[in-house]
């Protein structure tokens, strides 16, 4: 019986705490992620908390299912609808399956936006992409060019030849190369996002093109394998490996000098920007419609395209100065 009493007391306390919270009435913004326990999303939460602190009257609810399933996210969203939160920012496990429940949330007056992995247009007011194909393409060639001021030859080590994302980024990169007339692209090789194949392809590139100055790998598997191949071939200092990678996987290669730097979206900035936008839309300070310009605080402004999608920023650049700090996060 005493246990039950304890339970009742704690329940009453919880109720009292809730009542207090309701009096102060902070805006409650829920960050719904693919699954809890993923470093990338914990960093997103960090950014969201930063935004909340800056805004003052915002409380962040960081939540998500235990497994990356759409069904799990629907259960979470239902609980958030029940709590009548002010806004939901979601990175969806399924672009379509979340639409009915998010529609219901919007019908009940909740602001819904998606970030990172988007939701189909019917299920959200806007989608915040970490970056855009054009910005990534520009960044890829810029990182290589910065390491070779006199110009020279570069090669690309991609994932598979059919990888949609990588192909789009490489296309965008080729367009941006017009700005670098003294850089020549030798070849696009494909490592199929497998470590051993990517490693062999990187070796082949070094043998085929003795004047190669940079390998650009827009894939987290490829960039690691290429950096390893450069280290093993004792080509550090002669060939710079760059592209898109994860700080935790690339920190060693940055310190060895095989990579002078690489890029990936910054999850902290993404969480910050998503929270800023959610707050703005929930407060009715702006309406998400094609062409609308939304404020993202220290991240600047974003303009929505015809699908109500916007790109936050250039991919974030990581080098020897900051890679260790982010390697702890993701």
């Amino acid at each position, binding site marked *: 019986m005493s246990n039950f009493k304890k339970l009742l007391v704690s*329940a009453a306390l*919880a*109720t009292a705490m809730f009542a207090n919270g309701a009096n102060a009435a902070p805006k409650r913004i829920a960050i719904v992620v693919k699954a809890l326990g993923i470093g990338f999303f914990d960093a997103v939460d960090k950014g969201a908390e930063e935004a909340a602190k800056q805004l003052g009257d915002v409380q962040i609810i960081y*939540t998500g299912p*235990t497994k990356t399933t759409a069904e799990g996210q629907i*259960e979470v969203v239902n609980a958030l609808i*029940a709590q009548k939160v002010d806004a939901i920012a979601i990175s969806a496990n399924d672009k379509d399956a979340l*639409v*009915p429940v998010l529609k219901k949330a919007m019908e009940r007056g909740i602001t819904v936006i998606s970030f990172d992995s988007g939701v*189909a247009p019917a299920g959200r007011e806007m989608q915040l992409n970490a970056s855009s194909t054009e910005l990534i393409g520009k960044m890829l060639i810029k990182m290589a060019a910065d390491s070779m001021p006199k110009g020279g030859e570069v090669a690309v080590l991609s994932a598979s030849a059919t990888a949609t994302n990588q192909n789009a980024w490489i296309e965008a990169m080729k367009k941006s190369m017009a700005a670098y007339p003294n850089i020549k692209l030798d070849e696009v090789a494909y490592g199929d996002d497998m470590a051993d194949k990517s490693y062999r392809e990187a070796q082949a590139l070094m043998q085929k093109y003795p004047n190669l100055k940079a390998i650009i790998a827009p894939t987290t598997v490829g960039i690691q394998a290429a950096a390893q191949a450069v280290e093993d071939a004792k080509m550090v200092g002669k060939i710079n490996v760059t592209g898109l990678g994860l700080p935790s996987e690339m920190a060693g290669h940055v310190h060895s000098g095989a990579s002078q730097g690489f890029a990936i979206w910054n999850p902290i900035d993404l969480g910050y920007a998503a929270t800023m936008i959610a707050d703005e839309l929930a407060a009715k300070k702006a309406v998400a419609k094609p062409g609308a310009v939304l404020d993202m605080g220290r991240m600047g402004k974003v303009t929505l395209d015809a699908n109500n999608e916007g790109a936050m920023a250039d991919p974030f650049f990581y080098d020897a100065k900051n890679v260790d700090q982010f390697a702890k996060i993701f």
Partner: protein
Amino acid sequence: MSGASVAKGRHLPNSLTSPAARMVKSWESLLLVVVVVIFIVNSFASPYFLDPWNLSDATYNFTEKLMIAFAMAPLIIAGEIDLSVASIMALASTAMGYAVTQGAGTPELVGVGVTVGLLCGVFNAVLVTGIGLPSIVVTIGTMSLFRGISYIVLGDKAYTGYPAGFAYFGQGYVWYVFSFELILVALLAVAFGVLLHRTNFGRAVYAIGNNATAALFSGIRVGRVKFILFLLTGVMSGVASVCLTSRLGSTRPSIALGTELEVVTMVVLGGVNILGGSGTIPGVVLAALVMGLVTFGFGLLNVPGIVMSIFIGLLLIGVIALPRLWAQFRARRG
């Protein structure tokens, strides 16, 4: 908790304890107490809990799984198991998605979903009762097979574009806050309760689970009963697939991933002996309520889902360990 021996003797007319005493000491009564406690605690813990619409939304946490659990319970009582149910849902959903691209309307879609479920059930049944393979191995195999077909058909694509009328099964309301799924699951509870507890077929299920050889020599057609049980599990997976697909409005090959374990958890938590021979439909319903209310209650307090998993895991170990510990305790006291 009355111990496995009493639970097994539940349907013997010469039992020594009175029906009322057995009722009070039963697992189901304990579950009912747990449900009431969870309900009270949740009402105190969150101001949003006691809202008819919120509770109605919360029922979606378990309705589809419970439909399958109704068929899984008799199957486990009969000493078999079907781990392919979630994959059957995926295959049925994929078939429905394909039917949409061929211009099928809502009635045809329901027909396709249920029929695919039935065929999958028959496939399992033939392998288990026809060839005599162990069901756990067969259904682990078909678990990969059925979902594998979905992956081959869909890859990283999705079927969307279900007709508007199809949304009724997973999103519609029959009356006030009572959703179609909730009403359906209530009707199915009655149907399966009667089937298991009030018919010769139900008695045969318990007899097979306690001693299949003895049941066979008593004139029970063991193979046929098991065949029907697998078929029912397949059909219910098809029905659940119709509801879930309608609720999501789309199909991906990863749909209902991991549902089979939640269904088995529900059944075992409901007091069904995993080795077969005992268990009831009301117990399974109460277990579903426990799981659904705990998930929703924790969700309202924004408690991470992993805490809920730990809670259910401990409950499950308790269910299996307590009767055995109790029996050992009794035996030691002589």
